């Protein structure tokens, strides 16, 4: 369950900076993420939010700054001091990464069951019956009919693919999940269903989430706290409701007032 009383942060970013040559990806970003907390990174295209996410998830090395993570044994470790083997192990057990385009996060040529089971096999599970049982269970949890277990993700709709990707990430019981625009490219009703599902899973599993989105409605529904970025820098942080209801920075005010009212 959500545990705000924990004294120790799960993830700590200090002065994270990433340059692409002379250009800024993101500059001097610092924050702490607590166990069970959902943090949204919002901003317009090109504001550096995906660069920041990739740095946090060790998919991209920051030019400067440090990112620390509390391992399962309770020790705070600098992610870029870990060996590559440790980092990759962390990524496929204790972390998840949900891509905007499900095809980037799925193996499109193997069945849904194998997609969910891959992480289990990667950590040494060698019992076919158990792997399949767990896969079925997870398909059900993300509202995919169990009879589709042997179908390729290519035969799935966009929304189903995204849900499959989420199941594939959560099967090893990660503590931290990174999401890059998980609802991007889906139509509104599918988005709503996915958000509903995500909110339920996050609460049930007590997940910590860093979610990148340009959609303030997604941030409002899912996140506890948010970071607003522009031109690679953080311009406002705070509780989600506080930032959205009473934006302080002029840019945030602009962003909030740009939401279409239907």
């Amino acid at each position: 369950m959500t545990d705000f009383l924990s004294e120790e942060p799960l993830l700590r970013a200090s002065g994270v900076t990433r340059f692409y040559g002379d250009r800024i990806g993101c500059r001097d970003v610092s924050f702490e993420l607590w166990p069970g907390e959902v943090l949204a990174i919002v901003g317009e295209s090109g504001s550096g939010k995906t660069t920041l996410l990739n740095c946090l998830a060790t998919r991209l090395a920051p030019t400067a700054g440090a990112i620390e993570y509390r391992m399962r044994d309770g020790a705070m470790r600098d992610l870029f001091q870990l060996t590559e083997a440790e980092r990759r192990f962390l990524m496929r057990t204790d972390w998840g990464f949900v891509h905007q385009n499900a095809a980037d996060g799925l193996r499109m040529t193997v069945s849904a069951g194998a997609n969910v089971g891959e992480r289990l096999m990667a950590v040494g599970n060698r019992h076919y019956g158990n792997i399949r049982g767990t896969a079925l269970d997870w398909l059900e949890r993300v509202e995919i009919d169990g009879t589709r277990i042997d179908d390729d993700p290519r035969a799935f709709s966009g929304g189903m693919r995204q849900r499959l990707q989420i199941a594939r990430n959560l099967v090893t019981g990660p503590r931290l999940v990174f999401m890059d625009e998980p609802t991007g490219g889906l139509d509104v009703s599918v988005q709503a269903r996915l958000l509903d599902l995500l909110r339920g899973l996050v609460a049930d599993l007590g997940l910590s989430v860093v979610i990148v989105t340009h959609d303030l409605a997604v941030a409002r529904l899912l996140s506890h706290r948010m970071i607003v970025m522009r031109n690679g820098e953080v311009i406002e942080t705070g509780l989600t409701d506080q930032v959205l209801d009473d934006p302080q920075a002029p840019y945030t005010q602009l962003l909030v007032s740009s939401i279409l009212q239907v």
Partner: protein
Amino acid sequence: MTAVAITETEGEYNFAYLDEQTKRMIRRAILKGIAIPGYQVPFAAREMPMPYGWGTGGVQVTAAVLGREDTLKVIDQGSDDTTNAVAIRGFFEKTAQVKTTSATKDATIIQTRHRIPEKELTEDQILVFQVPIPEPLRFLEPRETETRKMHALEEYGLMHVKLYEDIAHHGRIATTYAYPVKVADRYVMDPSPTPKFDNPKIDNMKALQLYGAGREKRIYAIPPYTKVKSLDFDDHPFEVQKFDKPCGLCGARHVYLDEVVLDDQGGRMFVCSDSDYCEERRAEGHVGDMAANPAASHLAGKSSGAAKTEAGE
């Protein structure tokens, strides 16, 4: 221009076709492969006078380990007299003037495509495999950089994803050849396109095994007496193909059989894939239930006079 006298040796090929520097380079790769069982060692494969897919890797490995005193046997699909085997045997007869044989027990080096001889090999023999695609992870992970990393970090979960797919779609592990193995508890390796029937022979084999992939420019090896385990699931253990009939010509059981179509009336028979093993058994007087069939004795061919006599009796 001065005329230069051409000595008798000039203009001929170096022993076993490849020049000595190339052989040294290949031997280094082989030694490294032996030191790290199952690890794919890159090497600078040369153009050989045969197309890729015909055993350019195996031929280079054989050329590098071949000595004047060696006796060479070449197998293609278990047989000594199919095109690929005949061509490669002829190649080394011409370029190295070594003795060749079709008898497994007389050979010191056996180059093979697909099969491992039924007769148990000895410590004095080297088995050279022709490998088309050395990377067992290739069909699931197309990036070479990534597969190398996976080998380095021993991340082999993906291999089981392939086996999982087999069971999910076919109810059992349907991979019948190039069945992945783990060598010495470390590297996952593709035993080339040998049928999985031969996988148990790879385990703890007395002979040295060398694998050469010419197009992909990789060499790997399994030293004698090395543990080789075929991958499987706890509830779907590895098993080899079973044949319900013995060999039609020599009556051998527990060997790998080829199906041979005899006519267009649905006539067929199953015979040993290892032709040398079959001939040897027939010479010893073993007779299969199809040996008397005229179509079958035609199949047994000129090389097996013994079978013909038996068939006639």
